[in-house]
Structures are given as C-alpha cells and as structure tokens.
C-alpha cells in the first residue's frame, strides 16, 4: 500500500477510494440574508407527555428531541406540563422578568456611558433563569454561567449590590476584583461566577454529591451555554452526575449563538443538546426556552426527580440570544438582524403577559405601569449606587485589599509586594491615597 512519504504529503489518488472532504459548519443566515425559520420543528403546546419524575432515562428518549411547550398560540396553558401556577405567582414571575429586562437596558447604557467596562444582557432568555430559579427551593445551590442575572433577581438579591458590583465601586461586595456581572452570594446560595466556561458544571455535581453524602435535602443546579457544552468540564460533569446519581440539574441554554459561532460549532447540526444526556444515561428534556411555564415545569420536574433520589437531569432550553454576546461585540457583523424578528418562539415576557391577559389576570395598563415602575426602580437604585462610585472614578475599595484573600493569611512575599505597592502610591500621589 502506497503511503505518504512525509507528514502532510497527500497519498496518491486511488480511483476506488473517494477523496475525503472536511465539513465546516456554516449558519443558515449571515448579515443581510432574509431569514426563514420554517425548517425548525415546533410542536404544538401540550403535545409532549409528562412522565413520572422517577422514570428511567431510556424510557423518555423522545423528550430529548421534541420541545416541551405549555403556552399555545391562543395564549392559554396546555397539556400535562402545565405547572398550574396561581395568578399571583405568574405575576411575580412576570415582574421578575420585566425587572431583569429593565435592569439590562440601564446597565447596558451605563457601560456605553463609560460607567463600567463591560455588561452582558440576557434579553429574550429571561425565562430560562427566572422561571427555572422559581421552580427550585431558595436554598438549592445554583452554579450559574454569566447570563443568569434573573436568578439573583428572582431570589431577591438587592439590585444595588448588583450595580455596585458592575461599577466595581467601594460598596462592591467582591471588592472590585471581578469583571462586571460575575456576581457571588453565598447568602443566596449563588456560586461565584467564573469567566472560564463550563467549570461550574462539575462543581455543581460535586456540591450535589456532598449534599447527598450528608443526607441533606438541598439539590444543585448549573447553567451553561450550548457553545460551552463542548468543554471537557461539561462532559466530566455528565459522567460524575451519572456515575453517582447526583441530585443535580444541568441546564443548557441553547440561545443559538456563542459570540459569533452558531450552535453548529457545538454539534447542533447532528443532534440536540438535550440528547447529550442520553449517552450518559441522564434524563433529558428539551424545552421551549421562551415559554416561562414550560421552563418552570421542566425545572420543577427535574428538581422533584433529584430530590427523590432518582438522579440528574439535563434540560436544554431552546431560545434565542436577542442581543449581542456582550457590550464587546456587534452581532450585526456576523448574523442576520432579521433572526430576532423571525424567531418563531416569540418573546418570553410578551408570551407570559399575553397568557395572564388571556386568563383575565392582567391588562395592558397594569403592564405599562409595571414596566414604568421597573424602570423607575432601576433608575433610582442606579443613582443610589453611583454615590459609591463608578469604575475609574475613584471611590474604589482600599487598594491594599488587592493583596487580601489570595490566601487566608498574607504570606511574606505578598506582604513585601503590598509594601512595594504602598511605596508606588506614595511616589505617585504623595500619600498612600487608599481609595481610587
């Protein structure tokens, strides 16, 4: 058999052996393209069966490929996944989602005005964090990615603390050390957000394993983008979750885009992200991520499954990232602006609003008043937070705090470096100038 003579050299052509061709995925639509999403299979609301939470994963394969939907075109809730929430809870859910959106709008503008370095909106994905968090107990441990501000809002974390963190000011509970939106709050069972992708997945599994070891009743949940499911950490998390039957929910937010890379670069051309669970023997659900009731129902099912010692669940939330990845990219440079308008699953806030109106528990006037109240609340809180400073305009944490918390105790080499930093400050400002 003729072999290539050196690496990189092509083997001689063989008439009976076709030349290989590499497939490089390409999204359907690029800037300027007319968008048509009719190829997406969108089953009607209420069409998917709802198995018992103790079901064996192999018995629910179809749920990894279908789409669990509750809210129909008629704005009513349909089928066995209807979580039958009372109107007050639905209004609370709507209120959280509206507040998240108002918050995102203002913080994005704040970044553009130079008040901070960076921001990330979750527009269009609010249900995947708000409704999902509401389906968990408030002391269940969450390991979020960077687009789950909805969890903090649903858990009542003070808005001002979020803004202080975003501004890295002197009231920032994280002492100005973390990129904006990388929140942490142990008091809210909310794990410290990492900028390294998917690292939170095995950590959530480990927390859940610890809870199970201790005979605790609390479960864990992680969130990861569909793009980051390509990381080894996600697969390690799936393996450990399956091996130890960990009481954990692995949420995958499939918002179609990872910065400029469409979901095909994480494998979406071949199968669904929920189907990742099947190979591991993990129960898998695929959900309309813009249907807050479906998100709630799926998370509640997975939470009941975990709490009953029936094991982990992977939930894929099929949604759409309506805005850019962050303040640092311009989505019009890589995808068609029409995608957002044509997205066949609508907007999660509008769908929940229409549902509440359809059942006679809401109206346009109340909605407009709520939006106004959200905007006012965010505006007033922002002004309050600005008294503590904005990024780059003084009022930061005392600068020596940069040497603290590297270790529990300050070792000699950091002590020496801190002394050097003080000398530098004095040389520069004539005094230590602890702030700013």
């Amino acid at each position: 058999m003729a072999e290539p003579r050196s690496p990189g050299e092509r083997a001689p052509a063989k008439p009976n052996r076709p030349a290989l061709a590499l497939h490089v995925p390409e999204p359907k639509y690029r800037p300027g393209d007319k968008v048509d999403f009719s190829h997406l299979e969108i089953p009607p609301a209420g069409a998917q069966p709802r198995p018992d939470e103790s079901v064996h994963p192999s018995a629910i394969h179809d749920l990894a490929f279908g789409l669990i939907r509750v809210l129909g075109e008629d704005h009513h809730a349909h089928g066995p996944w209807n979580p039958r929430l009372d109107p007050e809870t639905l209004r609370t859910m709507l209120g959280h989602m509206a507040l998240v959106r108002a918050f995102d709008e203002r913080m994005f503008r704040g970044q553009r005005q130079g008040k901070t370095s960076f921001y990330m909106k979750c527009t269009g994905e609010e249900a995947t964090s708000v409704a999902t968090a509401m389906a968990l107990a408030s002391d269940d441990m969450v390991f979020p990615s960077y687009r789950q501000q909805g969890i903090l809002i649903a858990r009542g974390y003070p808005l001002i603390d979020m803004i202080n963190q975003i501004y890295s000011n002197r009231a920032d509970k994280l002492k100005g050390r973390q990129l904006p939106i990388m929140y942490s709050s142990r008091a809210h069972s909310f794990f410290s957000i990492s900028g390294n992708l998917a690292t939170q997945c095995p950590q959530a599994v480990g927390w859940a394993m610890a809870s199970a070891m201790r005979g605790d009743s609390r479960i864990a949940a992680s969130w990861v983008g569909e793009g980051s499911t390509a990381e080894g950490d996600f697969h390690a998390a799936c393996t450990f979750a399956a091996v130890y039957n960990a009481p954990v929910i692995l949420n995958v937010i499939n918002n179609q885009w990872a910065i400029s890379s469409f979901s095909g670069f994480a494998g979406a051309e071949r199968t669904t992200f929920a189907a990742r669970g099947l190979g591991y023997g993990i129960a898998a659900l695929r959900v309309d991520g813009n249907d807050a009731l479906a998100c709630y129902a799926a998370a509640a099912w997975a939470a009941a499954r975990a709490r009953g010692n029936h094991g982990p669940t992977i939930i894929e939330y099929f949604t759409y990232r309506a805005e850019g990845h962050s303040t640092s990219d311009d989505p019009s440079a890589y995808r068609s602006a029409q995608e957002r308008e044509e997205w066949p699953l609508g907007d999660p806030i509008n769908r929940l609003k229409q549902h509440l109106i359809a059942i006679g528990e809401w109206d346009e006037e109340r909605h407009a008043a709520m939006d106004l109240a959200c905007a006012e609340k965010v505006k007033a809180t922002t002004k309050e937070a600005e008294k503590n400073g904005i990024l780059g305009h003084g009022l930061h944490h005392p600068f020596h705090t940069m040497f603290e918390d590297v270790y529990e105790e300050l070792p000699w080499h950091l002590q020496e470096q801190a002394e050097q930093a003080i000398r530098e400050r004095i040389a520069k400002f004539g005094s230590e100038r602890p702030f700013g």
Partner: protein
Amino acid sequence: MSAETNTVESAAAATAAEGERRLNMIEAINEALDIMLARDPDVIVMGEDVGYFGGVFRATAGLQAKYGKTRVFDTPISECGIIGVAVGMGAYGLRPVPEIQFADYIYPGLDQLISEAARLRYRSAGDYTAPLTVRSPFGGGIFGGQTHSQSPEALFTHVAGLKTVIPSTPYDAKGLLIAAIEDNDPVIFFEPKRIYNGPFSGYYDQPVAPWKTHPDSLVPEGYYRIPLGSARVVRAGEAFTVLAYGTMVHVAEAVCRAKGVDAEIIDLRTLVPLDIKTIEASIAKTGRCLIVHEATRTSGFGAELAALVAERCFYHLEAPIVRVTGFDTPYPHSLEWAYFPGPVRIGEAIDTLLKD
C-alpha cells in the same frame, strides 16, 4: 517559624525510644489520612482506584473499609472532573482530599485548579473557599517513562492562591499532610514516589536502604502537624548551602557525605509559602548556594530560588549560585539515569561551587 519546627522535630526525636514504630512514607501518608478522616467528618478521600483497592501505591489501603464508601471512594478517570467536583464539595463545606494517580495526569485538571480552586477565595472576596488537598505521586527514578515520572511543581508555584508542599521523609509526610488538609487554602501535595519505600541515595546501582534504617522513619502515633512554610535543616554545615526538596534531599545528602564536604542541607518542604528566613540565614553563614531539583531546568523552581538568593543574599555570596536539575527533555524511559540529576552531576556542581 523554622526554629519552632525544629523544636517540634527534636522533641519527636527525643521521645523516639527503642522499639518505637517505624513507617515508610506510604504508611505515614495512610496514617495521616486515617487520622484526619477520624478527626474531621468533613474530610473525604477520592480518586482513581483509591477505594476498595486502596490506591495503586496503597496510600489509601484500608480506609474505605474503615470509613465507608461515601467518605473514601473511586472516581471516574477524569482529573478535570475530580478537581471540579472537589471544588463544589469544598463550596458545600467539605474538605476534600482528592488523589491524582500520577502528577503527570494532573494536566486535565489544571483549569479547575488554576482558574477555580486557586482564585475562589479572591474572586468571591472570601464568600467561598476551596480547602482541597490534592495528593499526587511525582518524580522519577522508577522507570515510569515520560508519563509517570514528571516533576511539575513549578507549574503550581507560579499560580497565585495555591500552596505547594513536598515531603521528603515519613515523619514530615504525615505532619505536613495533616497541616495541608487542615489548611483552608488549596494545597498541592506532591509525594516523591521514588522514596515511598526508602530514602533513595541516587546511587541507583547500589542496594536501596529501607526507611527503617533512617531516623525520620520514627513516626509518632496520633495527631501532629508540621506548619506549612517551614523548612528543615537536615544537616548543619559551613562550606555551602544546599536547597533541595523531595527525593533530591536524600541524593544531595548522600553525595555530600561521599565527598566529605561540610554542607548545610535545607529541605524546603513547602515551596509556597517558602521559608525564606531559613534560606537567608544559611546563605549568610555559608556564602555559597547549590540548588538541586529533579524537574526540568528552564523556569524550574530552582530559577525562583536562585533569583531570591541573588536578590536577598548577594553580598554574602562568595561564588555564583549553582543549579543542578533534570535536563530540559521529557523523562526518557531507557535513559532515566542519564536524565536524573544524580551523584555525578551534583558532585561536579559542588566542585564548581567550591573551586575558589
């Protein structure tokens, strides 16, 4: 700090009478784990093959039978997963002691160690911590080839937020491992596997002495700890200072003995935090410095030691600092002893250091 430790050591030596227990390094490590599992219900031990089987080097033998499957258990072959779930367990409030079967296998877990465990306290402003102790056999001289022989300590000493500990005797291994487990920061605990069963002299063609002939195999029963960040003066001397850790402490000692030179040999024991005072005091006395490690040379921890000695002890130095290290090659299987910084390389370095 070192003075305090030396007192602890002398006390231990003084109470070591005839007939007292002698342990090899594996037994000492096993005993430290046993003690901590018994003392602290938050301590758990996990890793590949550590459960029923007791570990490929037997370091966890008998622990699963004693403490049960939810405190000592096997894991999937996924170092990323092992470290990742350990970080999550730490966030829950446990004190995990994961084993990475060989230091050479630790790389898939590096993101979880460097970006997560090491930074968690800092990035959450103390909200969350990662009190892990990652145990891993390291170093060569066992015909392990390039994937079972590496000494990657410098990768970890470079990371802010990690501590790196390397014992060289059974007595130290037990006391340091207990201190590492009790430490609230993530600790990398590298166990020099060449000296698990005896204090290897570097003369690989000669019979290996078992630990029972070495004074530091006298290991007291029960709990004791050696504080992290304290070096040990193995041998006081006047001619020059040797800075070493792990296996190379014994090799350097044997070579100095063979050459009849009056070296002051310092076993660093902890690389971060480093016991700089003991180093400075020794160089001030001897004026000469030999650094010995098994890891590859370029950007090895010896480079950091040489820089520190040059920066802080320059006016005491009577000769250039000399480094003896492994070569900058992978660890070759058949030519293991050509790689290893053995007696010939160390002997030549001593001659250079003392020539004027």
